[in-house]
């Protein structure tokens, strides 16, 4: 994960760049097509694409004689990483709570809750 959150935020801090990304959501596009779709010049689009590329938000690929730009999934990976860390923390919290419960059970067995062995020795439950 080379991209820092700062680089991503800087890249997204520009309205034209966000517009470029939105246009790319539908699929890969060439610079010329993007320039036609937006109220900016072709060199300006190229400039913005360079910033987006540096932030790893878009990647370019060559298809025949054309150079196409498409959304990079790294941004999505940042979202993924957040959730991964979130669930790691939450499940760790859960494990700590469960361990405390198990510990409390050992210290103070609830009435009626016995081990299988003890139940075998005791009166038979009518099941």
């Amino acid at each position, binding site marked *: 994960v080379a991209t820092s959150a700062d680089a991503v935020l800087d890249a997204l801090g520009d309205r034209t760049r966000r517009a470029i990304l939105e246009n790319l959501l539908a699929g890969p596009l060439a610079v010329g097509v993007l320039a036609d779709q937006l109220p900016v010049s072709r060199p300006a689009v190229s400039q913005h694409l360079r910033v987006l590329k540096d932030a790893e938000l878009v990647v370019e690929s060559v298809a025949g004689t054309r150079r196409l730009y498409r959304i990079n999934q790294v941004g999505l*990976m*940042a*979202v*993924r990483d957040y959730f991964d*860390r979130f669930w790691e923390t*939450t499940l760790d*919290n859960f494990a*700590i*709570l469960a361990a405390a419960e198990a510990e409390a059970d050992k210290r103070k067995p609830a009435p009626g809750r016995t081990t299988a062995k003890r139940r075998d020795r005791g009166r038979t439950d009518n099941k």
Partner: protein
Amino acid sequence: MSTESAAGVEVARSVSVPLSLPRTFELFTARMTEFWPKEHSVGSSEFAEVVVEPRPGGRWFERGVDGGECQWGSVAAWDPPRKVVLLWQIGADWKFDPDFETEVEVTFTDEGSGRTRVDLCHRNLERYGDATEQMRAIFDHPNGWTGTLDRFAELAKSHATQQD
């Protein structure tokens, strides 16, 4: 053509706990308040309670310390003590959106010797990619997803101290 955007993005995590299958299920679903990270409140105030209504179609919500309720999602499958599927319906703009669904499937497996494994899978995360602008909200939100590691470190430390 766009196989990439069609590909599912998910995270999976597992944990093993020293409790029976039914008790693990009960602890996870009925006492979420006690292990949900405190900073992960979606509402306007800190949460007092995290509630999963124990039935299919039930709501999954937080009740704030101010008494207000803020829905997070709903119960897609309720199959005690083995499985619960919750829908996390909070968009990256931190608002409940009934049309936005990501799925949190939690399965519980008896490992024997009084232990139970919890497998959690949060899928459909690619749906957050539909609006790049939303990513910003995740990073920027004051109650954002940072700081939970710090909290866990503290918890783990206090837990270790108790054991000494």
